[in-house]
């Protein structure tokens, strides 16, 4: 092969990774909240692509379905229901911005340091072949992780009722 498949995948990964981070940065730097939301969509979709590369196609679809289709739309609704009559500078004071960025950068550096210095087990990754993840996920979700699953269900129920109660106009 002129271009190895692994290289294609690597390039795709890097592109998607850069897009995801760029979306996050754009989210921060965007002056308008709506642009931030669009950058968020970019990040979410890119992450979904990363999931595909990492062999989590089911999760990628769910990511798009739930994050893009539901959560982002919800956030956009939030934006539209709270019109910003006064256009505030969305970034906080320089001090807060710099300190926040510093802490974030520090955390990133520390994490990368840990990742770089940890002696990971040199296990081969699972084969990327069209291995259906759906069945495995479903099976484990309803066996090993059935308790978290139920808790998550209750969490969703509570969140739904809570959101309705909070947001409902008397």
């Amino acid at each position, binding site marked *: 092969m002129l271009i190895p498949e692994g290289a294609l995948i690597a390039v795709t990964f890097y592109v998607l990774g850069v897009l995801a981070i760029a979306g996050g940065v754009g989210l921060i730097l965007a002056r*308008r909240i*709506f642009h931030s939301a669009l950058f968020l969509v970019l990040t979410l979709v890119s992450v979904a692509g990363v999931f595909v590369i990492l062999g989590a196609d*089911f999760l990628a*679809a769910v*990511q*798009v379905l739930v994050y893009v*289709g539901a959560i982002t739309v919800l956030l*956009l609704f939030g934006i*539209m229901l709270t019109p910003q009559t006064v256009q505030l500078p969305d970034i906080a004071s320089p001090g807060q911005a710099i300190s926040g960025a510093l802490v974030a950068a520090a955390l990133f550096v520390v994490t990368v340091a840990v990742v770089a210095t940890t002696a990971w087990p040199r296990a081969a990754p699972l084969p990327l072949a069209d291995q259906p993840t759906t069945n495995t996920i479903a099976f484990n979700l309803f066996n090993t992780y059935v308790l978290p699953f139920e808790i998550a269900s209750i969490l969703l129920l509570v969140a739904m009722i809570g959101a309705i109660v909070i947001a409902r106009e008397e």
Partner: protein
Amino acid sequence: MTLPLCPPAVFICDPFGHARQGLYAVLGAFLPEPIPTVALTVLAIALVLTTVAVVVMSQVWAERRIIAFMQGRLGPNRVGPAGLLQSLADVVKLLMKEIIIPTQADRIPFQLAPLMVLVPSLLIWVVLPWGPGLMVTDLNIGVLFILATGAIPTIGILAAGWASGNKYSLLGGMRVAAQLISYEIPMAIIVLVPVLLAGTMSLQGIIDAQSDIWFVLALPVGPIALFLFLVAGIAEVNRSPFDLAEAESEIIGGFHTEYSGMAFALFFLAEYANAFAVSAIASTLFLGGWLGPILPPFVWFFLKAYLVFFVLIWIRGTLPRLRYDQFMASAWKVALPIALVTVGLTAVQITLHAIPGGAGIQ
């Protein structure tokens, strides 16, 4: 009575497959991998896009003619034979018109929105199976992929409505968003019926599972599921009677009020592409897809898809538009419970092996 299938070895039964093999052989003789593969993929995409364009134009023509017939009119009949070229003329006209961007618009999202709506519509075509092995890619999460891509246009519509800087556009956008979210839930649930019956989310797998019996005939859940799917599907593609997003009498043109020229054409294109996609998916999930005797599979595919689309046109010509609150209430209070009950019933039936041809769970 079982009619013989069109054998794939016959060229007419699988012209695309034969063409692909031939082209691959020719290209592979001169060029190293992966150039032939990539070239063929590009060709396939071009084919799909062309098909989409042709399909949409045919849809528009068919819709206008059929509606006109239902309303006792003639419809377009000047351009080309029986007005067949009317759509092409419209496309040319739209291409030549200026894209007007309102001064108070948010430019980048305004221009991005049509693409955000159109691209997912085209992406859905990636997994639509025209025949055995005849699709861009057969994802094993095909159904989920369709649902996921179907969710993205919501963002585009909201972006269009918001970026237009027009309150009618905004309201239209929000209406669509609410509508899409509301109907996505019964939709996502009801597609579980064929998924459960087939035991896979791969669209090819679902069609294979229907070789004995179409899922629409898997009583009693099949017809209910198909009906609900069509209702939700119509809502998802904003067609009458659920076309509240662009209700001219209420909020002008909805989210694309401010769009003109090619930008508007993209929304238009996406809308019809989606409508056809819904028809095709419905036929795939419930009507056996390309399955059919004698005729080539891709013919069956388009035949069934157009049949479903005809039903959509029929519905449009027949039913009045719903009021918004009725519409939303029907999503949460009618469609969702029915969908849940149907899925539950399906699961029970499969567990009891009570459905003929049901693959059941592993």
